[in-house]
């Protein structure tokens, strides 16, 4: 029995070692997002609380914690409370399989990429539950929109993942990174990287695809009835999801923890730092897109997903497979 408790304690320690940095970096990333957004618009952005305004998010979070949680009288209470919890949990749970370096990984499972895909496809439930349980028109419309949007773009993300898997021959995230030692997949699969980036924007409901919370039409979408800490949890879950998508992009296309070139001064930088740098780079692009691109119309969004991305990525699967088959480069698997 003591042995089990020891193992349990050890595991909890490891889990906290992953969770706390993520929560802190989510806070920092919100600051970075607002800062980039401000700088693009020739404003300063948050710069008052703490050095460079770094503590702005923590101040915001404190404000949310001390606010009253209001539950609408006609809402379905259980589902209403569950929705932000589901969003937050699913956003954090996916980090279990993200490898920060060759041995800095919480659980190294065989089907890591499928796990990531499954968890990110479950993320839609938090939004549907929140929108439905609020028992109000705008949240429901927002929830329906975002569910349709996320389901549509998942399809193209799945096919993009197939493209990468064809070149790797394994579903293990570590193998995917190690297969890029000679050449990052962003070079041979560049069109797929672009489509992945755009689909990730749509999957995380970021501008220009932030239709679920289009404030001009739907007040604030599925979050309209939420207040206080519950709203903050939606918000944190959203940013954790964005970070997760950035991590996924850097593992699939930018070579994870691998340095740009394996030469003396560059490979002194430790592996986890490379991973963090790549995630930050992708997030910087996310923030820039938010500031630059105007919002899509709903029919344009659906057309882009189903009529352009899906056929194109399917075509690219055929192309990649035929290329690998013709030049006999298909991965054989290690057994």
């Amino acid at each position, binding site marked *: 029995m003591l042995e*089990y408790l020891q193992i349990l304690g050890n595991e909890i320690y490891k889990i906290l070692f992953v969770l706390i940095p993520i929560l802190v970096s989510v806070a920092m990333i919100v600051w970075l997002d607002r800062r980039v957004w401000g700088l693009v618009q020739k404003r300063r952005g948050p710069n008052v609380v703490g050095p460079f305004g770094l503590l702005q998010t923590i101040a915001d979070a404190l404000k949310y914690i001390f606010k009253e949680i209001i539950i609408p009288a006609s809402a379905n209470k259980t*589902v209403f409370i569950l929705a932000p919890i589901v969003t937050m949990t699913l956003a954090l749970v996916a980090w279990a399989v993200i490898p920060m370096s060759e041995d800095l990984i919480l659980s190294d*499972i*065989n*089907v890591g990429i*499928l*796990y990531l*895909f*499954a968890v990110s*496809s*479950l993320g*839609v*439930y938090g939004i*549907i*539950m929140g929108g*439905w349980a609020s028992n109000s028109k705008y949240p*429901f419309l927002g929830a*329906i929109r975002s*569910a349709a949007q996320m*389901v549509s773009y*998942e399809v193209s993300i*799945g096919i993009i993942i197939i493209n990468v898997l064809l070149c790797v021959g394994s*579903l293990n995230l570590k193998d995917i990174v190690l297969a890029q030692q000679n050449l990052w997949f962003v070079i041979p699969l560049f069109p797929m990287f672009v489509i992945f980036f755009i689909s990730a924007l749509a999957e995380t409901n970021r501008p220009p695809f932030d239709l679920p919370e289009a404030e001009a039409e739907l007040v604030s979408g599925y979050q309209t009835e939420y207040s206080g800490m519950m709203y903050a949890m939606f918000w944190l879950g959203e940013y954790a999801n964005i970070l997760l998508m950035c991590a996924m992009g850097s593992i699939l296309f930018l070579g994870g923890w691998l340095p740009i070139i394996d030469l003396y001064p560059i490979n002194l930088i430790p592996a986890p730092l490379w991973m963090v740098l790549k995630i930050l780079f992708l997030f910087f692009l996310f923030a820039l897109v938010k500031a630059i691109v105007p919002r899509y119309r709903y*029919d*344009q969004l659906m*057309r882009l997903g189903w009529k352009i991305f899906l056929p194109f990525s399917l075509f690219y699967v055929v192309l990649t497979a035929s290329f690998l088959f013709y030049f006999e480069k298909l991965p054989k*698997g290690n*057994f």
Partner: protein
Amino acid sequence: MLAHSIFFYFFSVIAIFSSLMVITSRSTVNSVFFLILDFISVGCLFIMVGAEFLGMIILIVYVGAVAVLFLFVVMMLNVAEQKQSWFIGRQTSHIPSGLIVSILILLELLVVVGGWKYKDNLMSSSTLSLSNIPNTHQLGLVMYTEHILYFQLAGMILLLSMIGAILLTFRQRTGVKKQSYIKQISREPSSAVEIKEVEFNKGVKIDE
């Protein structure tokens, strides 16, 4: 093994409880939520017996896509009243057909499980070599080589049913204004805006 059995009972109790709640809960949306919980716990059970690919596919396909559509249908259509009438009303006409279906399923399960018990070498007679290869690789090795015909057939059936569903719901509407994206994108200031010198007291004609 202790931890393993604790997790097994945890997931199976949740699976059984939630499948009972699917048919007994009054609210249809709650039923669907319990159905999702059921799918998730069954997926976890699959992962526990080592079929991690199957478990993940259940999560992705059933929970991530099929159950979302269920939720849509249940939220948009008002099926709540129909379900209420099952509990309160005296509509017993559904019970015989339900009984027949459930008895058939029970018989099928008995045949499958019984056959397994009766014929010990059923597992060893399969072409799969059970070794240390992870089961995703194993599936990949036989799916597109030995069983390619069945695989393609299943895909064809799915495609046909999809086309059928689209055909059933398709209706050609007339008099609908459609947006032409190419026209919208290729608009330029020179063709969109025109500056005219207007003479005093004459006015301009638009759209001549």
